């Protein structure tokens, strides 16, 4: 299940009109969708919310990817549904709350699915987040596939020594993870030490305000998307006023 989540949220390069947008606009779209999802308090409003999410998702050719993420959140969704029922909220209300949760998940995932880690970095820098923090984030994401590869190699090596990860009760299974986690963590620590040395050798910290090869600049399509997003947002919120009674 963790696989699906990691896979679903991972950015894959695609050339759609959504992907080509400035990441700040993509963020804005997600925020708009998120707020709409948050404000949905009945089924018809939710229908509008989902509809609003599906449009950019379809334009970004990411419906299937989004579907994967949704299937993972399904367990949580069911959990929320049951909890609400238990607390006496009634079937309809519980269903509404559950669907709202899923709409929120979908709207935020859309951003991550359409935005490369590269672009994420630019957005973070634009928000003037501390450089060290942004760098740490970027490097972490960059090394995820590397560590995943380490993990498969470690598992292979330990399985070859007779380690059986899929046998035994829950306690045994947890214990069996030790020969996998320790090498993984140690290797990650050694890597980070080497990374630190490499950073020094590339002048990290030489200057308080490092320059940047690329900067974000809004193009005409970004302004177009911006106006459309704002217009759609406004209309949806107005329609919510109408749909509030249903």
């Amino acid at each position, binding site marked *: 299940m963790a696989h699906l989540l990691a896979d679903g949220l991972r950015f894959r390069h695609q050339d759609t009109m959504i992907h080509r947008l400035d990441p700040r606009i993509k963020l804005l779209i997600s925020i708009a969708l998120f707020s709409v999802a948050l404000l949905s308090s009945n089924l018809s409003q939710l229908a509008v919310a989902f509809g609003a999410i599906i449009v950019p998702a379809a334009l970004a050719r990411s419906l299937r990817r989004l579907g994967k993420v949704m299937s993972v959140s399904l367990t949580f969704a069911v959990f929320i549904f049951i909890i609400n029922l238990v607390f006496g909220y009634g079937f309809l209300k519980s269903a509404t709350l559950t669907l709202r949760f899923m709409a929120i998940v979908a709207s935020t995932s859309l951003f991550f699915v359409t935005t490369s880690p590269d672009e994420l970095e630019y957005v973070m820098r634009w928000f003037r987040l501390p450089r060290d923090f942004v760098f740490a984030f970027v490097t972490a994401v960059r090394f995820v596939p590397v560590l995943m590869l*380490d993990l498969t190699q470690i598992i292979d090596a330990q399985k*070859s*020594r*007779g380690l059986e990860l899929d046998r035994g009760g829950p306690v045994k299974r947890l214990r069996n993870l030790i020969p996998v986690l*320790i*090498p993984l963590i140690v290797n990650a620590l050694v890597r980070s030490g080497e990374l630190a040395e490499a950073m020094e050798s590339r002048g990290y910290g030489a200057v308080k305000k490092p320059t940047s090869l690329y900067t974000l600049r809004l193009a005409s399509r970004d302004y177009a998307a911006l106006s459309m997003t704002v217009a759609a947002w406004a209309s949806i919120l107005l329609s919510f006023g109408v749909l509030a009674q249903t």
Partner: protein
Amino acid sequence: MVALDDVSLEVDKGEVLAIVGGNGAGKTTLLKHLNGLLKPTSGSVKVFGKETKEQSVAELSRKIGLVFQNSDHQLFSETAESEVLFGLKNFGFSEADAVRRAGEVFSYFGLDSLRQRAPLTLSGGEKKRLCIAAVMAWNPEVLVLDEPTVGQDYLSKGRILDTIRQLVAAEKTVLVVSHDLEFLWPLDARTVVMMGGKVVADGDSQTVFSDSPLLEGAGLKQPQLVTISKLFGRSPSFRDVSDAANWLSRR
């Protein structure tokens, strides 16, 4: 993209086999089929006459010990001794039996001084030999070494070579995967050359290592002794520098 393409290979008991090729030739992929980490998409892999598809990795590893390239992917225990005990316990040896075998294997490989050391503090060469010892502790019939010399210095390579010879003398079946032909030359092993997922040569080391175009095509470097022997028209090629010096000094 196919990682292995129509590979047919038979290895007899007690044989020493070298599998050579550049990075990406498919050597490691091939090895992983031996203990079931990978199962073939088509064709069959039989170990001791039985299909690997019908056996678990643990079952197969009991008979075929794989030592991977990166020692740091395996070592995790507090002491070298507990590292060796790990595999033994996994394969169901009793406490008493396991401790006895661990002791034997430390002596056999001359690693007694390392017994209580923390594996993570050992040198590269020591780690490698510890990994080999840890696998031999449960006494598999076959030992497979994946690039044992990568990152090792000269002294360490010598010790690894001695270890292999020790095992060959004990009639184990040994497979060594390497791109380091200088290292393999003294072993005089049957050699299989792989390229792009295929086996492109299979013969004795003299024939294979003398085939310069073959080696070059496979991205491998001919051992200098072979090149020198060929230049002086000497066949079979010298296995040892001293032999070469003596022979040449008499010309």
